[in-house]
């Protein structure tokens, strides 16, 4: 066999094409995961050599009140903001699916926030919007409501400022739902109308089941991202007040890069990975109960 014949064998060609992925996957995912695993059992400040301390990082973590608080805050944030965002996205998609000349413009307007929402620009803007002398309070005062709430300084409102920012970015989920809605055959609705089904009945018996695969996929991906949210918390609240908005990944960042405790940070990362994996697993396990796949 000549070299060119050998290179043309499908097996060889396949590996040549994906070789970049294999190298990158090993170098930037597998090796870091291995390093992280080893370091999670050590005390490491990056300057001196790591010292093996067994399970002490994990033991310490379970007694660290800030760890538990950040975990609670993150769960609250993800489990509230992701479902809210998906519900909003679905509602608005149902409204916009109605054809009209302006629907392109409407779609663009609702979609815009999700395009820019993760930027630093919007984070600093949000901080100013909800400042005591910001636009939200000014607008509330204008319509006669109390306009002196310190949204970002109160323990019971600060996290909601971040949740509102997350829900505000429902646009891209809305687009996904819109394209899902358009794929539902009109004949289903026609048949339901002939059978005398009401609007809500159609929604719960046709629309919602047909969308469950899309909803499921988005729920999983967005929950993973929600648990890992970083930038908005880091810039807008920095975890304040009294750590009531301290996200898990921000606390992990503080431990590793501000207190120079890389080992502890790695251990925290592993706990989160396990939690997210278990949660994803549960979602997948229960998915055949509520996710409707047409081929079945």
């Amino acid at each position, binding site marked *: 066999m000549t070299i060119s014949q050998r290179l043309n064998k499908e097996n060889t060609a396949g590996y040549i094409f994906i070789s970049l992925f294999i190298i990158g996957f090993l170098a*930037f995912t597998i090796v870091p995961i291995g390093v*992280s695993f080893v370091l999670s059992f050590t005390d490491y400040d990056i300057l001196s050599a790591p010292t093996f301390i067994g399970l002490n990082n994990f033991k310490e973590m379970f007694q660290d009140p800030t760890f538990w608080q950040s975990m609670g805050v993150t769960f609250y944030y993800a489990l509230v903001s992701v479902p809210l965002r998906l519900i909003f996205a679905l509602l608005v998609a149902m409204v916009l699916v109605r054809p009209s000349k302006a629907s392109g413009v409407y779609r663009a307007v609702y979609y815009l926030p999700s*395009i820019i929402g993760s930027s630093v620009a919007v984070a600093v803007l949000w901080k100013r919007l909800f400042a005591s002398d910001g636009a939200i309070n000014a607008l509330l005062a204008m319509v006669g409501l109390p306009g002196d709430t310190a949204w970002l300084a109160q323990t019971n409102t600060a996290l909601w400022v971040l949740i509102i920012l997350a829900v505000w970015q429902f646009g891209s989920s809305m687009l996904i739902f819109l394209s899902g809605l358009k794929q539902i055959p009109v004949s289903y609705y026609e048949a339901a109308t002939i059978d005398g089904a009401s609007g809500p009945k159609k929604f719960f018996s046709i629309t919602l089941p047909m969308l469950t695969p899309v909803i499921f996929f988005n729920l999983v991906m967005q929950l993973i991202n929600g648990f890992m949210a970083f930038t908005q918390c880091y810039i807008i609240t920095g975890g304040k007040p009294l750590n009531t908005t301290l996200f898990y990944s921000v606390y992990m960042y503080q431990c590793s890069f501000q207190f120079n405790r890389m080992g502890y940070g790695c251990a925290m990362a592993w706990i989160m990975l396990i939690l997210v994996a278990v949660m994803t697993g549960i979602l997948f396990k229960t998915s055949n109960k509520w996710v409707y796949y047409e081929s079945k």
Partner: protein
Amino acid sequence: MNARKNRTVVYHILVCLFGLVMIYPVLWMIMSSFKNSSEIFQNADSLLPTSFKFSNYTNGWSGFGGVSFSVFFKNSFLICILATVGTVISSAIIAYGFARCNFKFRNFWFGCMLISMMMPFQMIMIPQFIIFKKLNWVGTFLPLIVPYFFGLPFGIFLIMQFIRGIPKELDEAAKIDGCSTYGIFGRIILPLIVPALITTAIFQFMWRWDDFLAALLFLNKPSRYPVSLALKMFSDPSAQSDWGAMFAMATLSLVPIFIIFICLQKYLVEGISTTGMKD
């Protein structure tokens, strides 16, 4: 007929009102960038400035610590363009391998790609930092660029979907004419998947432009900062905060995104609806 017309009018009014609420924050930012710093919070409830001023833009552009925003923008463009070019080239090659070649353990490697897609950056940021530190890459642009030359799962998926839509007969005809697998990729497939490449490029450019965490970790000198990181430092209350200038720079930092949004919306919508995901 009349009742239906009324309902249509109500529909449009409601949709417009809600749309206004949605983009009000952005409008407020843009308008505030033309206001005096004192006016921004005194007249926080009014959208229009008493008079349009561009001084915020000139003040803001001078930056901080002796580094102006022209440097930050240059850094951002350099990082984003290189990372995007790397992403598109590598993702196209990898996607072709997965979509058209039958090789051993393909499903295994495909599973690995799913894992790397689900793996949040936060999980591996600490060891990556340590590795890059040992390589002396921290403080340079390399950690923000090099990893993307090994494919981006989102792009690989998108391009794979596209390649699957191309009839296999095309490949086979070329093969009979003596074209090698690499020739088929370069001459037949590559020209046909340009729309998917553009979509991948747009998304990756926007994500790199917005990226904050990696820049925060891997860069340490203001002269190397991209716009996102510079904006955060600029808004820190340690300095006497000039909110007008901050809003001006925040607005400017969104201009590339706005341009993409307005000119290339078709690709954005397609990318989102075909892959069914956003990040």
